Every structure is written in structure tokens, then in C-alpha cells.
């Protein structure tokens, strides 16, 4: 129970004010400075991945995430190592927050530079937190249909690859033509460097990695062309995922996720100045999607399947084979970026509990929302927590009703489970006490609610609402929004940090546990082996290629590949000892 592999991804907003405008650094440069400072604290190895990033000694990673780096966009993302158990996951999330916060402070950037653990900025850009849980993708005939469909998708995969190949040839042809144009016009151009930048982009002109391998206008064309070329695969995969991927899980989990904001919402001042319980939920516009392919913001993201088919399979047939496994990564893009440890612990812990119950088959009659996306938004906007939404079957339920339903179901499940852990008991108790406290608060007259918000220092939305109430009346939207954002700032000036220093925040993990989690990988996880090899060979002469699936030692024919999914031995008993690496084969990733 509460023993599945799970991980958190957090996209941090960047707060940056250069000392003076000429010294302004690009977002990629800020990322590089940050990683440089991280290296002063822990060993890192550059990720062997299609995305720019580094893995750290604890098996987690730090990435530069951007769709248009040449256009100046980008943010810094952290991924925890694969953990087991909610409390362990909270410890590793805190370790990641602490590591990047320290690195930002020590990065030597002139001016103000810091990170904000939040899900959207004041301009409406949405990013933030994602959760990953190891769950069965399907069972019975649906699992076989999923596998058969993957084979059926392969012609679409080949079609996309052919298109990408053509695109690469066109890019090479463009570079040749641009070279001729440059040679012909550089003497006539008033600023040859500006002409070169417009034709070739910063990387080629400056002869170093700047995060902008092409000019912004080429980047835009390539991005749109990629979307068009992969559209047939995207449509086919989308239909396939809708029909077969995580259907049982989605059916049992969706009403829980919609109502989860009452305990795990981080609070949000919307564009109209209203206070909402959660900041990510109002941005959701579909249940299933790829996350940004066509401006979709799904609750359940299938983008990792899409990336595997489009990119990873090119280099590794094993990546394609991995999609046939009965257990896959369920990615939930709904969760808020929590500052309160209790909020975060309840968010991942109650979700793991419900997933355990669904897998055990005890939530087959879970409530189903009639209109899921409007329900997500309605619950997030319902700061009074008395709004009821329609369920299938004609009933209605509020977010608190739904949370009570799931709490009772999990309690019954735990009572009859032979391996109920101490953490599970603690979690159920905390969940119930929290719902009791919220119920007591909502039963007060509205005039008394604002002055005594319950659960300050325990739940994020309550803590943030308390701070907003302290501002008094007649306060501008910008001032309220500053409180909303600066609450999440990972620095000593951050409002949540100030509350921690004042001792008003309830902790779930100790500082010693967090410090250890910065440097050591969790046991019984693929991260255990990743962290081991990273610490053993991270500063050795041998080339080390690290990603989520493998560790590769050396290059060429003599390279050895260690598969991280083999962190348990043949008897089924898991072990933290790394296996002996095998020789590299053509299918290494």
C-alpha cells in the first residue's frame, strides 16, 4: 500500500531583473548559471536526452524547458527521482526546491534572479506541477487492444519519421542557401552580424551553445511544420489513448481529482481579482491530451507516449517495446505547486491511496462527473466550498462530499488490506482531520470566515487567503497578485519562507531528511541505480550517458548499457545493488 513508484515534475517561473539592460541574460544563460551553481553542491551529469538538462546525484534532474528558445521563452524544470511512498516523495520535492533555490542565489547573476514555484504568472502563462504514478495502463482485453493498436500505429510513426527526415534535409538545404546569401550580401549589409544572426541563429554565429540553434523565424516554421507532419500520428494516438489508456483509472480517479483542490489547492488570485482555491484547475480544457500540441491543457497527459513514438523510438526499438508493458506512467497535469508540506503530502498521498483502491477493484462504483471540465473549474472557483455539481445518475455532490466519499472508501480499503502501513494510517487521519476543519470553517457565517481562515501553515489556499485578508480593503489587483506570486518565491524574501522562519508552518519531513535527499537517491527505485552510477562515474574520465531508462558507460562499440528497470533481481525481491552492466547493443538508447 502506498508503495508504487511516483515522481513529481515542477516547472519554476523565473524572476529576473538585470542590473542594467545591456547585461540582460537569456533564459538559457540563466539556466546554465543555475546548473553551474548546482554543480558546486552535488555531482551532475548532462542528460543523454533530447531535452537540455542534467541528472543530479540523487537520481533527479534539472531541465531547461522551452518550445521556442530562440524566441526568448523558457523556464527551469525539476524532476524528482522515482520515489516510493508519499512522504519520501515530499522529502525529495523539498530537496529539489532547496537545491535550485540555493543555486539561484549562488549563480552570480547580476541583478535579481530567483525561482518561483507556481503554476502561472500574472500574464496568464500556465506551467507548473505534474505528477507521475506507476499504474496499469489497462487490463484484460483492453490491454491486448492497447498493444494491438500500438502495432497499428506504426505506419503513422514511419510517416512522421519520413516527414522529419524531409524537414532535416530542407533545413540543410536552407543552411546552404543562407550561406550563399550571406556571402553575397555581407559586404553590402550595414551590420553583417545582424544579417548572420537573422540567417543562422545565435549558436552558429557565436560558435557556442546559446539555447537558440536557429533564428526565431526558422524555429517558428520548424515547430509548425513538425506539428503538421506529426498530426496523423497525433490524431491516431489520441483516439487510441482515449479508448484504451488508463480507462479504469480515469473512471475512478476523475471525480477525486476534481475535488482534491479543497486540500491541495495552492490558492489563486484570478484576472478579475477573485480568490480561487487552485490555480491550475481553471486552465484545464480537456481530460486527455498531449499537453500543448494544439493548445490543449489536459488533466491526463499522454505527451510522453507521443514523444516516445516520435523521438525515442528513432534511437531505440526498446523504447517502442516499453510501451507494451502492462504498467505505464500516468501523468497528471492538474496538481498545484505546493509550498505547505501537508498540502503536498495529502496531494500525492491521497492520490496514491485512491489509485491503490482502484487497482484493488474497490472503487468500481465511484461517482462519475457528468461534465468533468466545468466541474474542475467550478470546484476551483468555489472558495466557499458549497457548490454542488451534477453526477451521472442524477445526483449532485460538492467537493467536500466527494472527498468524504473517497476518504470513506479508502478507510474501508485500508481496514481490509493486509499491508496497511503506518504512513497510510497517518494519512487517513490527517485527511479526515483536514476535511473536518474545513467543514467547521464552511459552517461559519460568511462574515467570520475571512478573519479566521483555518489551517494556516497547513494548507496553501488557507495560508494564502489569510495573507490576502490581512491586506485589508481597497487593495489593488497588482498588490493582491504580488502576494499570490511572492508566496511561492523560493528565497528568504518569499512570503511562505518568511512564515516557515517564523515557525508557523507544520512540517512533514525534517531538515535532516531533506538535506540527505539532496545528495542520496531513494532506495528501491530506478533512481537508486542511476544515483549510484552517477556518484561512481560522474567525475571519472569515462563518458557517462544518463537518462530515465538507462545509464551508458563509454562510447562506441565498447560502451556498456545498464537498464534501470532491472533494479530488482530475478527472484522478484528488489535490491538497491546495481547489476553488472552489459555490452552496448545497437538498440541502446
Amino acid at each position: 500500500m502506498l508503495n508504487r513508484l511516483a515522481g513529481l515534475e515542477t516547472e519554476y517561473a523565473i524572476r529576473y531583473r538585470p542590473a542594467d539592460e545591456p547585461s540582460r541574460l537569456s533564459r538559457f544563460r540563466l539556466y546554465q548559471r543555475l546548473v553551474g551553481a548546482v554543480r558546486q553542491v552535488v555531482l551532475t551529469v548532462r542528460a543523454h536526452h533530447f531535452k537540455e538538462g542534467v541528472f543530479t546525484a540523487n537520481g533527479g534532474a534539472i531541465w531547461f524547458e522551452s518550445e521556442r528558445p530562440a524566441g526568448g521563452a523558457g523556464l527551469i524544470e525539476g524532476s524528482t527521482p522515482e520515489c516510493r511512498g508519499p512522504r519520501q516523495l515530499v522529502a525529495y520535492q523539498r530537496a529539489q526546491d532547496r537545491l535550485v533555490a540555493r543555486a539561484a542565489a549562488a549563480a552570480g547573476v547580476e541583478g535579481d534572479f530567483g525561482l518561483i514555484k507556481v503554476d502561472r504568472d500574472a500574464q496568464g502563462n500556465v506551467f507548473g506541477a505534474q505528477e507521475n504514478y506507476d499504474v496499469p495502463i489497462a487490463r484484460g482485453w483492453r490491454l491486448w487492444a492497447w498493444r494491438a493498436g500500438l502495432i497499428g500505429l506504426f505506419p503513422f510513426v514511419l510517416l512522421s519519421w519520413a516527414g522529419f527526415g524531409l524537414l532535416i534535409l530542407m533545413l540543410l538545404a536552407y543552411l546552404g542557401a543562407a550561406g550563399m546569401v550571406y556571402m553575397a550580401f555581407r559586404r553590402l549589409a550595414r551590420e553583417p552580424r545582424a544579417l548572420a544572426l537573422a540567417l543562422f541563429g545565435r549558436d552558429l554565429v557565436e560558435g557556442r551553445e546559446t539555447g537558440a540553434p536557429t533564428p526565431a523565424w526558422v524555429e517558428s516554421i520548424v515547430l509548425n511544420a513538425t506539428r503538421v507532419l506529426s498530426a496523423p500520428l497525433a490524431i491516431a494516438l489520441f483516439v487510441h489513448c482515449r479508448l484504451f489508456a488508463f480507462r479504469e483509472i480515469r473512471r475512478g480517479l476523475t471525480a477525486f481529482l476534481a475535488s482534491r483542490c479543497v486540500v491541495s489547492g495552492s490558492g489563486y488570485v484570478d484576472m478579475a481579482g477573485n480568490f480561487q482555491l487552485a490555480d491550475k484547475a481553471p486552465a484545464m480544457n480537456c481530460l486527455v491530451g498531449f499537453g500543448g500540441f494544439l493548445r490543449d491543457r489536459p488533466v491526463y497527459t499522454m505527451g510522453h507516449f507521443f514523444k516516445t513514438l516520435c523521438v525515442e523510438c528513432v534511437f531505440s526499438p526498446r523504447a517502442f517495446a516499453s510501451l507494451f508493458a502492462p504498467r505505464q506512467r500516468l501523468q497528471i497535469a492538474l496538481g498545484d505547486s505546493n509550498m505547505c508540506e501537508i498540502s503536498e503530502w495529502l496531494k500525492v498521498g491521497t492520490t496514491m491511496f485512491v489509485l491503490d483502491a482502484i487497482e484493488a477493484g474497490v472503487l468500481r462504483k465511484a461517482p462519475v462527473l457528468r461534465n468533468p471540465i466545468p466541474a474542475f473549474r467550478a470546484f476551483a472557483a468555489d472558495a466557499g466550498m458549497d457548490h454542488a455539481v451534477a453526477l451521472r445518475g442524477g445526483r449532485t455532490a460538492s467537493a467536500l462530499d466527494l472527498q468524504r466519499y473517497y476518504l470513506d472508501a479508502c478507510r474501508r480499503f485500508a481496514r481490509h488490506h493486509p499491508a496497511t502501513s503506518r504512513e497510510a494510517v497517518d494519512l487517513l487521519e490527517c485527511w479526515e482531520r483536514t476535511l473536518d476543519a474545513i467543514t467547521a470553517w464552511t459552517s461559519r457565517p460568511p462574515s467570520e470566515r475571512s478573519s479566521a481562515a483555518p489551517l494556516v501553515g497547513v494548507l496553501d489556499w488557507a495560508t494564502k487567503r489569510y495573507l490576502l485578508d490581512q491586506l485589508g480593503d481597497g487593495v489593488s489587483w497588482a498588490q493582491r497578485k504580488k502576494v499570490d506570486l511572492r508566496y511561492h518565491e523560493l528565497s528568504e524574501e518569499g512570503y511562505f519562507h518568511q512564515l516557515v522562519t517564523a515557525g508557523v508552518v507544520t512540517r512533514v519531513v525534517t531538515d535532516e531528511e531533506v538535506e540527505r535527499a539532496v545528495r542520496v537517491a531513494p532506495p528501491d527505485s530506478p533512481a537508486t541505480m542511476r544515483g549510484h552510477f552517477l556518484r561512481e562515474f560522474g567525475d571519472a574520465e569515462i563518458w557517462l550517458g544518463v537518462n530515465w531508462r538507462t545509464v551508458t558507460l563509454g562510447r562506441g562499440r565498447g560502451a556498456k548499457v545498464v537498464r534501470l528497470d532491472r533494479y530488482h533481481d530475478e527472484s522478484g525481491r528488489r535490491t538497491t545493488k546495481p547489476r553488472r552492466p552489459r555490452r552496448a547493443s545497437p538498440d541502446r538508447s
Partner: protein
Amino acid sequence: MESKCHSDVHEASTRSGEVADLPGVVRDVLADAIASSVAVPPPANVLRAIRSDSRAAPKAYLDECETPFGGE
């Protein structure tokens, strides 16, 4: 099997000094915090500092925090 696995994990966690179960002291603090309507009211000086800081150039702060991802 599940019970065995959990037991192994718990043993491994405890052995290596990793995160184990919720410490008793945290559990007690949590119970007290949730039992009261306002867990521990933030000190007045902290609230004053936050209120004062929130008034300082809020619009500029919001602009400094703009973080486009590029996929919008």
C-alpha cells in the same frame, strides 16, 4: 507479496536513514495544528513586513516574473 515488498522497503528505508514513517512529534504538531481554527497565527511583525513589501512596486514585480514557455 505486497506485504513483503512493503516490509522490504520499510527496512531499507530505516536502515539507510532515509525517510521512514511520520515522526511522532510531527504527528502531534499536526494534530494540534488541525484541531485549532488558526494553527499558529503568524507574528504581527511578519504580517506587517509582508503587507509593506506587497505595496512596493507590485506591477514591476509581476513583470519580472513573466515566464513564457513558448507553447502558448
